[in-house]
């Protein structure tokens, strides 16, 4: 067996006996389902909740039925403006010809109650106008001069599911490729120095580049395992958890192409991140210092991962696919949303990530072979 293989086997054995890494992988697998479960509970509660509308004055005939049907409970109060601050969600003052609404926009329940009230008013106005037109012998359809029939070419619920996945999946993939193996990376680099084993290791005839390869491949495997465990648990959770208002389980359709692209990108990202984190760990005197060095990486990775959330229709030219991490997010988003692979973008992305990984490995090797590595310790 080569020196790299010997180091790899030993590192994997040690990592699998390290509680920190096992907990990190376990949390990676559990965190997403838990978050999704909480979101589903909150969304279900929000959708089924009844909000209170405090009112004064005379309620127009029939309006109370619409309030009840829309999940707004009418409560008579003396001063609706004051009551809307805390006592009820919105305050309504009905006068003969108009209604004054009071609500506090800083309260989420007030915002939701306002939306429902606008729905009630829209229905009420529509019904009153239609009745009035009929009284005067006019066909109410005159209010809808250009009726539209919508024929979606794909399932809107599936599209909504894909849209959700196109943000969430790259985000989890990238953050887990980084954080899933971070503890292992620091343990195998900064940990060697902290445990005082580095000198003995470098005293062996094993070439240092092979020692480094063994360590980086071991960390890559752990990162990859953490990322894929997190994504698998997320996909399983999405088929099981019901979201309020969706009328059933969330439709998850990850195409085979998207799955292959995801695994390929995960390998490239995990290898690149592993090289970077091992290099940073090599710079550090101990595990804690390594964590401090690695902290900025969170921000560097999370920002591109979030861009799809903030700019959902971001369709850049091919040059943007040279930017590491951002390119992986965009390729994966396109594969999920469209169910097809843009081979040009994937090629540029792959080259970019391979070059990034190679440069990171070169940096790690330079750090690992310098004399200061021992002298500093």
């Amino acid at each position, binding site marked *: *067996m*080569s*020196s790299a293989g*010997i*180091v790899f086997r*030993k590192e994997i*054995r*040690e990592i699998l*006996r*390290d509680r920190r890494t096992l907990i990190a992988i376990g949390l990676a697998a559990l965190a997403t389902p838990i978050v999704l479960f909480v979101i589903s509970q909150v969304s279900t509660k929000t959708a089924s909740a009844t909000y209170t509308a405090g009112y004064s004055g005379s309620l127009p005939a029939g309006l109370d039925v619409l309030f009840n049907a829309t999940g707004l409970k009418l409560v008579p109060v003396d001063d609706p403006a004051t009551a809307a601050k805390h006592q009820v969600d919105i305050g309504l003052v009905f006068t003969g010809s108009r209604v004054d609404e009071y609500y506090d926009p800083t309260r989420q329940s007030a915002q939701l109650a306002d939306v429902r009230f606008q729905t009630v008013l829209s229905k009420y106005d529509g019904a009153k106008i239609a009745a009035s037109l009929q009284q005067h012998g006019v066909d109410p359809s005159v209010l809808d001069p250009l009726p539209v029939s919508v024929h979606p070419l794909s399932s809107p619920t599936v599209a909504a599911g894909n849209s959700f996945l196109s943000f969430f999946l790259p985000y989890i993939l990238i953050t887990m490729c980084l954080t899933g193996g971070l503890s292992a990376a620091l343990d195998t680099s900064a940990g060697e120095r902290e*445990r*005082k*084993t*580095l*000198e*003995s*290791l*470098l*005293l*062996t*005839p*094993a*070439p240092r580049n*092979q020692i480094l390869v063994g360590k980086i491949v071991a960390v890559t495997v752990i990162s990859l395992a953490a990322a894929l465990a997190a994504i698998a648990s997320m996909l399983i959770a999405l088929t099981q958890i019901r979201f309020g208002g969706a009328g059933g389980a969330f439709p998850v359709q990850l195409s085979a192409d998207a799955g292959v692209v995801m695994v390929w990108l995960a390998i490239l990202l995990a290898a690149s991140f592993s090289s970077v984190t091992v290099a940073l760990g090599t710079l550090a005197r101990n595990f804690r210092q390594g964590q401090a060095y690695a902290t900025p990486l969170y921000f560097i990775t999370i920002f591109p991962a979030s861009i799809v959330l903030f700019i959902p229709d971001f369709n850049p030219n091919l040059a943007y696919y040279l930017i590491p991490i951002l390119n992986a997010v965009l390729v994966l988003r396109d594969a999920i949303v469209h169910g097809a692979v843009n081979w040009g973008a994937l090629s540029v992305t792959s080259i970019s990530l391979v070059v990034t990984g190679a440069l990171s490995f070169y940096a790690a090797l330079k750090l690992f072979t310098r*004399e200061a590595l*021992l*002298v500093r310790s």
Partner: protein
Amino acid sequence: MTQTIPTKPVVSWGPLGAAVAVDHLEKQLGSNKVLRGISFQAHSGEIFGLLGPNGAGKTTTLRLICTLLAPDAGAVEVLGFDTRTAAQEVRRRVGVVTAEIGVYPRLTARENITYFAELTGLLDGQLSKNVDAVIDRLDMGSFATQRAESLSSGQKQKVAIARAIVHDPPVLMFDEPTSNLDVLASREVREFMIESRARGKCVIFSTHVLHDAERLCDRITIIHEGRVVASGATTDVRGKFLDLEDSFLSLVDAP
């Protein structure tokens, strides 16, 4: 990677057949000139003492011998192999025990030793044979399957020695090996050095504990501020003084 150790050295053995020949060695670390032309020779079948106060350059000298550092000037040969041009061959022939007992805590004692045996290039049959032999020789059988994190300092030091000698190197270097050990464990290390000398090994013992050096070493070199201030048989260096400590203090001009 497994490599065959050449039966003949790539260059001639050092002067006078020395196992380790250090010739006018110079080394600067940062702005500090640590070594200023150190020369000495250590032979097979002897314990050679490298003495000096803290910061004298003992550890740097050992690191240069075992190729962890490269010299700025001068040369080191180990069994005829130049450390600059045949670093891997040198590492195959050297075993180093340091003061810092670093072991992999989540591996057992046996796994720690096996890992280093594999990296040294021992093949399967020879590997297990050597690992078993070294465990037996250092009386480690009772804790060989325990994780290193649960071992005592003395037991960890045995693991450190075992991994350094598992490939049966002809040159052994001990850098302050007893500084973190209790009396019993220290004695075991000293006995091991004596036993290694009897087996024909070249043992280089770096220490500032002069009492240990006086008891163990056949020859010594005293380094002070990066220079050799005395070298020769232990009795010769002690000379007219009552013990080595007095001799040492006079050589380094201590009050």
